[in-house]
């Protein structure tokens, strides 16, 4: 069984600052970490490695320094890593990212399962996973909190949604995005750390993936960021208190005061 875990390097969530003029993240001097949700994806892959002897490959798209994030996954026990890096990939939106990642998965070839974190903490879109599934024509499930092998070709996955829990049976090859209930990320092991230090991580560009440079990066993106702004702070909040009846009366008076139609 071969599992690919997709990860993303993001600014350390503990020290995020927004530039008040450009409204973009201040990335200078901010340490990069692996997207915390992707660490649950790595853990999910490694649990299958422990249980079923699966091989786990980590893939990321990013600048050359994203290789450090891949090396960190090797320290945790991931078998192989591939870095997708090319100037042509710059400015990718979620679709162009999914295009690039899914091309890499096709190139790897024998992939039975793709695992992603539920979303990245910088963009928060939660789109890349499902888009990859569409491009690969894999069945997929999002917000997976646990999974279990049913037979050689099927897995039972449990999704956590706002409404409740859903249990699905999915055939391989499949894609899942996972949440923290999947299991606390393990610490590295010394042997893996030593191997990771020496490991040579292959770098694939658009040409290696057989991708037209116009279909990736900024050119291949359907969406473009026109403007970024911090939402204005809502300061006109009123906290109601008292019994339910008192609160209802306060609410009624307030709605009347601001002349809500029909009241």
């Amino acid at each position, binding site marked *: 069984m071969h599992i690919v875990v997709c990860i993303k390097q993001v600014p350390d969530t503990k020290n995020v600052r927004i530039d008040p003029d450009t409204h973009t993240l201040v990335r200078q001097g901010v340490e990069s970490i692996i997207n915390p949700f992707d660490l649950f994806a790595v853990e999910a892959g490694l649990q299958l490695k422990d249980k079923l002897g699966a091989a786990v490959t980590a893939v990321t798209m990013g600048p050359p320094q994203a290789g450090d994030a891949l090396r960190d996954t090797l320290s945790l026990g991931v078998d192989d890593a591939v870095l997708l890096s090319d100037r042509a990939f710059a400015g990718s939106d979620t679709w162009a990212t999914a295009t690039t990642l899914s091309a890499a998965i096709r190139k790897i070839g024998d992939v039975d399962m793709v695992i992603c974190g539920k979303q990245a903490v910088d963009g928060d879109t939660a789109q890349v996973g499902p888009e990859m599934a569409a491009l690969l024509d894999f069945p997929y499930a999002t917000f997976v909190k646990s999974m279990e092998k049913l037979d050689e070709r099927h897995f039972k996955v449990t999704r956590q949604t706002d409404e409740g829990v859903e249990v699905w049976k999915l055939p391989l090859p499949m894609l899942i995005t996972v949440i923290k209930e999947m299991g606390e990320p*393990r*610490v*590295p*092991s*010394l*042997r893996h750390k030593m191997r990771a*230090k020496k490991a040579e991580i292959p770098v694939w560009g658009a040409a290696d993936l057989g991708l037209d440079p116009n279909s990736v990066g900024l050119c291949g993106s359907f969406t473009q960021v026109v403007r970024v702004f911090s939402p204005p702070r809502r300061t006109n909040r009123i906290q109601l208190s008292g019994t339910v009846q008192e609160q209802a009366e306060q609410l009624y008076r307030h709605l009347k005061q601001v002349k809500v139609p029909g009241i």
Partner: protein
Amino acid sequence: MDYFLTEEQVMIQELAGQIAREKIRPVRAQLDEQEEFPWEIMKICAQADLFGLYIPEEYGGLGGGILENCLAIEKIAEACIGIATSFAASGLGAYPILLFGSEALKRAYLPDIASGKRLAAFGLTESGAGSDVSGIQTTAVRDGDHFILNGAKQWITNGGEAEIYSVLAITDRSKGPRGASFFVVEKGDPGFSFGKKEKKLGIRASATRELVFQDCRIPKERLIGREGTGFIVAMKTFDKSRPGIGALGVGLSQGALDISVEYARKRMQFGKPIISFQAIQHKLADMAIKTEAARALIYAAARYMDTDPPDSSKVAAMCKVFAGDAALFAATEAVQILGGYGYMQDYPVEKMMRDAKILQIYEGTNEIQRNIIGQELNKEYSRQKESFF
């Protein structure tokens, strides 16, 4: 200070430090309060490959030495020496097998100890034999292809939790110091049981129990080394393990210093952070001096001991005494610097003070260590031809 560690040694520090920060700090108070054995942390240390640092690669270890082991122990000890003691005690139990065991014993036990699959423990102390090892009463009598053990070991670290025990017993009382031998006893061997878990002042996450042998029958191949070499095995084991006890002290001192400086920089009295007062600065300076001096001694000694020198006992004893005393000093000063907060269980330094005391007691009291150093000095100088006057 840069101790010019190798890349691999730095990795050991980083990894053990990460475990201490992320996994141990959040649970240490709870494990201490509930006297709960840190199985979860032991599993993490196992998965991180830390149990096999000093074990040769051919037995599943990483092929390092005392220094590598000390680096890991120190980092874990920065967060909790109750947990670090449980970790280090497995090494203490393994050393007799590693140093003197037959090839078959090494193959049978070291890979599991190195992987952390099974914990080891060391059984020497008895109710009547601590500092005076010659008071040992536990006996092992040969019976065909077996030895039969009778007696009880007291205050055994990892007792009941470990599965592999290196145990000292008298095989021939008439031979005096040459009449004792070490054996491997496994949890589950017939006639081997455990007494109650002891309640302790500190290192309460570690488990301390009595080992009870009632006609405990073990195969004769479980004898470690030759019959009658028990005291030598014990002394050589302590030579290897005592720098590790020193490393526990260095870690605890550093942990106490870290908290003290952070607190002193924040705590405001008379309109200033208390670190601006000389009384506090001098305390912190003394803590830092002793911590760094202990670390320098342990690292230098550990490197030296990895060359199997002839004067191991003296150097090993120095490590244990100096770092143990430094740790109790640093922990006590930390409590003083934090004042009322330091005395409260909501803050981690009162635990450090309770924990630190054991470092002057177990694995040979610091008084016994000074005896060893004094006796070794006497021996060394008896060989001196030159006068220094």
